[in-house]
């Protein structure tokens, strides 16, 4: 697992999500990237059941259960600022058994699907984020395979992102700052995806509120 950066691409002015995705993929193909199949990352939210909360009425914590097609045999479970658990796919079945403690939030499933591109040692995944039937945004993930220390190759990643995202290049992800010389792992990628999904959900809520 190399260092990965997950960011959101804002939808272009006057264009739909689909068209922006097509613009991006065309830019990538012009750069020389090869298409290599599809990918999917999805996320379900659970909150701690009311029965387990103390009488003080402390707020329940939100738990996210995510899957990544890059690791088909694994399941990731993480809390917002807490630890990330990497388990195998039987974890989903376990969640069903833990219905008493964790309850699924209504209509909470959010996922991103799209195509993978390979350019030299870079793996680029451009996906459409959907919540239910409607598309809500665009996610861009870039992984640089050879490097495993985040602080080492951020400048290199930035240069590559600029070459095809142009002005929409993101800043350094928060996870890069936390782990200075530690080896980058898949858990960090899932944390980035979780933050992206939360941001999109907030945008959605704000938009709904405005209307």
């Amino acid at each position, binding site marked *: *697992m*190399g260092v990965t950066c997950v960011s959101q691409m804002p939808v272009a002015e006057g264009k739909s999500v689909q068209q922006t995705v097509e613009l991006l993929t065309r830019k990538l193909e012009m750069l*020389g990237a090869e298409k290599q199949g599809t990918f999917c990352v999805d996320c379900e939210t659970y909150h701690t059941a009311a029965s387990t909360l103390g009488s003080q009425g402390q707020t329940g914590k939100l738990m996210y259960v995510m899957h990544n097609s890059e690791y088909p045999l694994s399941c990731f479970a993480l809390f917002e600022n807490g630890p990330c658990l990497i388990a195998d796919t039987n974890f989903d079945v376990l969640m069903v058994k833990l219905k008493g403690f964790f309850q699924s939030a209504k209509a909470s499933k959010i996922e991103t699907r799209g195509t993978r591109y390979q*350019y*030299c*040692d*870079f793996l680029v995944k451009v996906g459409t984020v959907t919540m239910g039937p409607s598309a809500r945004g665009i996610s861009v993930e870039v992984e640089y*395979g*050879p*490097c*495993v*220390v985040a602080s*080492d*190759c951020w*400048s*290199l990643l930035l*240069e*590559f992102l600029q*070459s095809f995202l142009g002005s929409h290049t993101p800043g350094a992800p928060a996870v890069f700052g936390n782990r200075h*010389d530690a*080896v980058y792992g898949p858990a960090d990628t899932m944390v980035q995806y979780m933050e992206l999904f939360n941001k999109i959900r907030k945008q959605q809520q704000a938009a709904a509120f405005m209307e």
Partner: protein
Amino acid sequence: MADVINVSLNMEAFSQAISAIQALRSSVSRVFDCLKDGMRNKETLEGREKAFIAHFQDNLHSVNRDLNELERLSNLVGKPSENHPLHNSGLLSLDPVQDKTPLYSQLLQAYKWSNKLQYHAGLASGLLNQQSLKRSANQMGVSAKRRPKAQPTTLVLPPQYVDDVINRIDRMFPEMSIHLSRPNGTSAMLLVTLGKVLKVIVVMRSLFIDRTIVKGYNENVYTEDGKLDIWSKSNYQVFQKVTDHATTALLHYQLPQMPDVVVRSFMTWLRSYIKLFQAPCQRCGKFLQDGLPPTWRDFRTLEAFHDTCRQ
């Protein structure tokens, strides 16, 4: 000397064991002959039976004796492979089809040729160093005379010396660790780990570097058996490029008289790769060129350049 004595002892016991096998075979065939002939004609039935049983017992005893003799001799013969001084290449010589696959004789010729080449190169470099082109030739001339004329061939160095040199280099740089192993005979194989950036497998021949393979920090360098994998290339294009550069480097750093200096300079050059992903190209200032970071390190100044940007 001891090897020769052991070999002759084995040969004696070996030939005795072969004759013991022949004796055993004949005694066993005697048993079956006796069974086949059946009872000899004697006056009474008892007499016939007794004679038959006595004959049969005699034959079985002789079989037993021969078998014990054979067991004793086989313990003496021992394992031939333990005294095999040639290891894997000697097994090639056991191939009987010499006309179609003369591998072993070709191998011996190639080995002798490369040894002779090494020796001649050493002599030539000694002579050439005496005829220095520099004006201040006095220092070089004096040391050339002080150096022994008959240069011992640096191809046959004791493994302990090689270990010492490598250990000293290991302690030179804190971010570089070198692990030495000898899985295939006397040639050393080093696994150099440079920070968290890359791993290099260096195959050596006494103190000369033969081949290098550069792989990523998270890539697997061992085969399924747990041995060091010295053949498979890296999965990443950047490390395949660095492997090519490392091969160029080991061809560049050459000094037949002082191989430890060569290894030291190679390791110093390799150490400059600790900033493989952080250093921009000195010529164009960018990080990426065709998707690759600056992979070339100048041999003298150790500056980073893209492969296409170097002079």
